[in-house]
């Protein structure tokens, strides 16, 4: 048990912090208001190796580990949660499954450009009628010679408006229920592939969330990821990893809010003294920092477990559950410490407060995490 960042990790953290402070943070407010997808940010992130952090060099990535990936997502999310989730989706939900289940041809054609940031990926699992119950999705994939023909609709797809490639889950045999689910890599320009405009949301507003629609989209068998019927397993395992990214995002949001609240409490004077002199405010800060530290350690623990080929499904669910709920509490208290100013757009805390909310919902709601955790605790312990 030894938790100390290596020189390589520290250097990465410094580099990303500088990029986040100088490039990402100044635009956070603007893209939150306009909802404009920050493709230029994504391109720059690609140049820094942040679009495929844990992908080996040979496949276009930065060749670092999962802890490094957490550091990247935390630093970027601290500046801008929208930018954090854009990277998290590309890294965790697109690159990671191709690395794990893709063949060399798929890695060459898809992983390399996605990991290097040349292409942007999105993850198409959720449907109007299949959210937490991912096994019940209705998008179909009918085999037709060397192709599959896809029909159906996906919703709430992060990066959807701007992605170049979609990892899409469709059922190749509805009778088999979730055992028919199959994964496909589909260029978003494919015939019959349409998508919506950016949808305005409560938070992470510029992450390009939209619907995808498939009308007789023909996908070569060569673009099927894994075997037919293996899709549900791929989706679930991918979400296990994705949860580590979202936990890191939640930690970044919470840290941003915590730092601003700490600074504000020392500047703002009431009753002739800084707010930080009042015990009520001190105790808020003490609880916020304690929970934040615990959330980060749980996140790193899940990352460490994944990196060392240990079980990490339980650890990732716990990290995601805990960190997302901590982000909610910490941003709420940070806003409270800012008082009326915190409720205005003049300060960042109202954005942190809104951005935190989604972390309890996407990549498995808190309730789904508890189902996963309870299953481990009750049945697998």
């Amino acid at each position, binding site marked *: 048990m030894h938790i100390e960042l290596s020189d390589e990790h520290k250097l990465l953290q410094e580099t990303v912090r500088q990029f986040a402070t100088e490039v990402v943070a100044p635009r956070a407010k603007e893209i939150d208001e306009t909802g404009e997808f920050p493709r230029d940010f994504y391109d720059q992130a690609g140049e820094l190796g942040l679009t495929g952090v844990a992908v080996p060099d040979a496949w276009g990535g930065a060749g670092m580990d999962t802890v490094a990936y957490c550091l990247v997502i935390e630093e970027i999310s601290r500046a801008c949660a929208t930018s954090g989730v854009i990277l998290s989706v590309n890294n965790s939900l697109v690159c990671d499954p191709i690395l794990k289940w893709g063949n060399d041809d798929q890695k060459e054609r898809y992983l390399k450009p996605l990991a290097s940031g040349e292409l942007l990926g999105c993850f198409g699992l959720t449907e109007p009628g299949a959210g937490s119950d991912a096994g019940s999705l209705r998008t179909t994939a009918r085999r037709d010679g060397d192709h599959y023909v896809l029909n159906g609709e996906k919703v709430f797809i992060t990066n959807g408006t701007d992605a170049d490639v979609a990892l899409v889950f469709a059922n190749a045999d509805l009778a088999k229920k979730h055992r028919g689910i199959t994964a496909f890599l589909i260029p978003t320009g494919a015939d019959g592939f349409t998508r919506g405009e950016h949808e305005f949301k409560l938070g992470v507003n510029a992450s390009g969330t939209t619907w995808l629609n498939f009308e007789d989209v023909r996908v070569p068998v060569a673009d099927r990821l894994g075997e037919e019927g293996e899709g549900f397993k791929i989706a679930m395992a991918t979400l296990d990893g994705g949860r580590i990214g979202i936990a890191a995002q939640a930690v970044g949001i919470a840290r941003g809010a915590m730092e601003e609240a700490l600074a504000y409490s020392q500047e703002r004077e009431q009753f002739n003294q800084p707010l930080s002199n009042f015990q009520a405010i001190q105790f808020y800060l003490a609880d916020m920092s304690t929970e934040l530290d615990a959330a980060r350690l749980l996140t790193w623990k899940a990352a460490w477990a994944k990196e060392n080929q240990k079980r990490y499904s339980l650890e990732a669910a716990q990290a995601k*559950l805990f960190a997302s709920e901590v982000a909610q509490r910490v941003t709420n208290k940070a806003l409270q410490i800012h008082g009326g100013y915190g409720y205005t757009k003049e300060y960042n805390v109202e954005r942190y407060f809104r951005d935190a909310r989604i972390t309890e919902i996407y990549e498995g709601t808190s309730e789904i995490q508890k189902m996963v955790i309870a299953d481990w605790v009750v049945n697998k312990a």
Partner: protein
Amino acid sequence: MAVAEVPTVDPAVDFALAEDQELIREQVRRYAEERIAPGEAERDREHRFPADIVVELGELGLLGMLVEEEHGGAGLDPLTYCLAVEELARISPSVAVTMSVSNSVCCWPLSRFASAELKARTLPELAAGALGGFGLTEPGAGSDPSGMRTRARRDGDSWVLDGEKAWITNAGFARWYVVVAVTDPDAGKHGLSAFAVPADAPGFAVGKPEEKLGLCSSRTAPLQLTGCRIPAANLIGEEGQGFKIALATLDHSRLGIAAQCLGIHRRALELAVAYARERKQFGKPIAEHQGVAFKLAQVATELAAARVLTWHAASVAEATPPDPRAGRLASQAKLYASEAANRAVAEGVQIHGGNGFHADYEISRLYRDARVTTIYEGTSEVQRMVIARHLLR
């Protein structure tokens, strides 16, 4: 100040325990299950001190875990110590506090601050199985030690102590007590000094044991010091260092309490899971009802959080060079682990329903035992003061 040369570890994010840490953990777990568990309910009911267990703890080397090997101790690191406390607390929080007080607040300050001569007179005996105690708190000085009244006056080759210490764990069973007293009333916190007081010192007496809500088989009683005379050489460190020694000791002992909380929390979860799998309502085990399953998930997650905080704090506690975050991390661990353990036992009772309210069920004892953890070795409020001070400096 460090005991042994700590080998330099390459910086890494590594959550794995070392092999010898796993080994000691396993050994203490087995011992606690086999030897402590059988009599625990009865000792609790009869408020009986686990004297026979204490003898065995000494034989196992668990009473001098942090003491240097040259003084008969095991010379182990704080994390290994935390693992042992957790395993004991899982079976008996009373035994765990008896053991952790001796290690954390008696042996530790002696080992880190006493002269070589004083160490040689106290530590081998303590490490071999004699118990230790710690006299800081007074009736009028709890969270705020500046209200301390116990006086120590120099008289030739002796110090003479007068005053009363309250809530002293192991009182009456300890062989040595680390006692903090005022040596210069005009010097504020720099006027406090720490002393090693043997139980057979003239003028030393133990008052009536307290009746407590929980930890009923651990002993808590006041110390009465009436012209209590000890050799001048029993001063620990320098005159005026008492406050510094007390604070450093509490920083350290908080880790032990955090570890005690992990043991209580883990046991509460085990009991709740076992009960929820067995107990059937509405045609299925209550563990299959989401209202219960989600409680178990929450309790398990908070245990994981408390554990990483505690282990991390323990792993930096005696780093060389000293880690400036160590005090904050120990307070965070103690604050979080104690609050989480209390939530865990409350949910544990709730999951047990009416049976959880019955004295025959272990969870009801844990519910009582857990309560003190947010109070002793610095209340949750004191931990928050410590953490905030670190954040705002």
